[in-house]
């Protein structure tokens, strides 16, 4: 590698020792970062007996091996996984699309004062969501249903007779959560796309304008196709963020039948008597979607993170 070839043998040997030391430290790092996950996986496949008899990070084989906790956790979490997907996938796509459009209008098309809008948008990434929880709850449970009900009964009064009521089912709450996540995802997606669009050549956009392309045509024919790699980054990063969230779901979903995976995992671990084979199974199963996304698209995730 980078060792200079002209060095005396002793230096080489010393360099070799340093190299070995380096790799040992790096491997220790791997142990550090993986052991909680490894322990969780090892624990979820143990019988109660094996659980008490073996060290936590040693996987049980043979008699001590059991999938019963995994199955129980899977059954508890499965509806949550479905709801999480139903919510996170559209929310992510919406955020990415909106973010890309906003970044295009705020970057590629240049106008004075746009930085002020950009600052407001970017600041939106960093706000603690506690600061919006109370209004958010009031909006989705009080204001919005009121507005829609009033609107429907006024405009379609001849059909409803003024008796239509806003559906307060779990599914509607899930849609509301989806819209919420889509909206709060816009700032980070805008930032990701903006830094990407800043790198796109101005001259190319000008060439397209000279070619007679409209703002929309430039987006459709040039910007959008060119930003497909960034869409991959944004979708992956944002999916992880939305799927992993607990707070919004906690305040916006109150139907016990419609709960996302993170909520169900909290309920699973919330019991008085902790059964760690079960909670670890739950943790691993709940982590599986983002874990798989990360394993297959780690590169894009790292890019999203680095911004």
């Amino acid at each position: 590698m980078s060792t200079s070839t002209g060095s005396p043998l002793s230096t080489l040997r010393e360099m070799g020792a340093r190299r070995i030391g380096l790799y040992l430290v790096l491997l220790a790092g791997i142990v550090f970062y993986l052991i909680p996950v490894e322990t969780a996986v090892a624990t979820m496949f143990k019988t109660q007996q094996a659980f008490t008899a073996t060290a936590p990070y040693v996987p049980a084989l043979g008699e001590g091996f059991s999938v019963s906790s995994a199955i129980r956790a899977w059954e508890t979490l499965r509806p949550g996984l479905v709801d999480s997907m139903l919510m996170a996938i559209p929310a992510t796509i919406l955020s990415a699309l909106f973010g890309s459009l906003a970044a295009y209008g705020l970057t590629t098309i240049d106008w004075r004062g746009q930085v002020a809008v950009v600052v407001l948008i970017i600041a939106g990434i960093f706000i603690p969501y506690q600061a919006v929880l109370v209004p958010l709850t009031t909006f989705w449970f009080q204001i919005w249903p009121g507005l829609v009900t009033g609107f429907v009964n006024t405009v379609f009064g001849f059909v409803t007779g003024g008796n239509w009521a806003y559906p307060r089912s779990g599914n509607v709450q899930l849609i509301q959560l989806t819209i919420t996540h889509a909206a709060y995802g816009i700032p980070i997606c805008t930032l990701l796309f903006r830094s990407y669009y800043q790198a796109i050549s101005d001259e190319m956009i000008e060439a397209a304008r000279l070619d007679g392309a409209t703002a929309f045509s430039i987006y459709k024919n040039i910007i959008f196709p060119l930003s497909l790699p960034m869409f991959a980054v944004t979708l992956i990063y944002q999916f992880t963020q939305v799927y992993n969230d607990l707070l919004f779901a906690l305040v916006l979903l109150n139907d016990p039948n419609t709960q996302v995976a993170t909520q169900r995992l909290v309920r699973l671990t919330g019991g008085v008597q902790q059964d760690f084979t079960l909670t670890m199974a739950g943790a691993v199963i709940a982590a599986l979607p983002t874990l798989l996304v990360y394993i297959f698209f780690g590169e894009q995730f790292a890019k999203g993170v680095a911004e």
Partner: protein
Amino acid sequence: MAQLTLDDITKIFYDDDEGEIRAVDSVSVDIEDGEFLCVVGPSGCGKSTTLRMIAGLEDVTSGEIRLGDRVINDQPPAQRDVAMVFQSYALYPHMTIRRNMAFGLEQSTDLPKDEIRERVDDAAQLLGIDDLIDRKPGELSGGQQQRVALGRAIVRDPEVFLMDEPLANLDAKLRADMRTELQHLQEDLDVTTVYVTHDQTEAMTMSDRIAILNDGKLQQAATPLECYHEPNNRFVAGFVGEPAMNFFEVTREGETLVAGDFEYPLSASVADTLGAETDLTLGVRPEDVELVAEPGSDHDYDAVVDVVEPRGNENTVHLHFEAGDHESFIATVEGMRTVAAGDAVTVRFPEEAIHVFDGATGEAIRNRDMDTVEQIESAV
């Protein structure tokens, strides 16, 4: 077919820190139909801004841009019937060469698909890139991309070609080749062309006329030889020609120009043309400075060679006067002549070759005699 007229155009930018910036200041030029005009000047002189105003990529602060009789100031770029070639080529990286060239026609006309195809094929054949037409820009060399950029402009058959340093990204050899080719192409197509460059060699060799800008102001718009032999002012004199003209700050005392290290006596006929100004600048082109064997006239001076830069066919010789070191200057002598650093030589500034400028304003008061130029040129 139309001529392009820039009538007193001005561009002012507003900057938060620096306030008003006059990037282009009252520039007026007529560009004849089919003419090749090079706009040159140092970086920041406003040449690109001028081009971008013609293209419609920048608003015009005041003045009029006309194409034929029609004022195009407020028209969006696509409606002006101009096509632009950019320094970076600005090709669409995700589209094939064919789509790159067809995009403008697709976007701005209702031409049927097969007709677009035909025009693209024609242009590609004309430029010798017909076998590359299904590739993407990333697979092409710089020179090939340059051709595609040209092709993209040609297929639209515009009234005016605008070119912003289109050859600057090519290596020296390719640049020289493309220069010739571009010139032929422009002649064949006979389209009015405005070509921006910072390279005065490019401007001199390619264009029908040169427009020289400095600090947003038009210094001179004339044929390359006029700019070379009859510059309007000191800036043009110094900008055109390589190596640049030698300048000496002088004071006129009677019929003599007095500099730090030498005195330049004027003949009565020349002195008469200079007017009353006494604070002057004397200019002599390096190629007009002669190295003579013996002092033989009033315009001969003893000088010492500082540095010699051999260029093969000629040498660029840096000198200073033996009388002092207030002034140094450059002479171009033929390559076979042997001079070396430290040599004492005699130099002659022939009176017919001198330029005299107003010391304060830089305006040309007297340019070299053109008779001798014609003699020289007919002799060559």
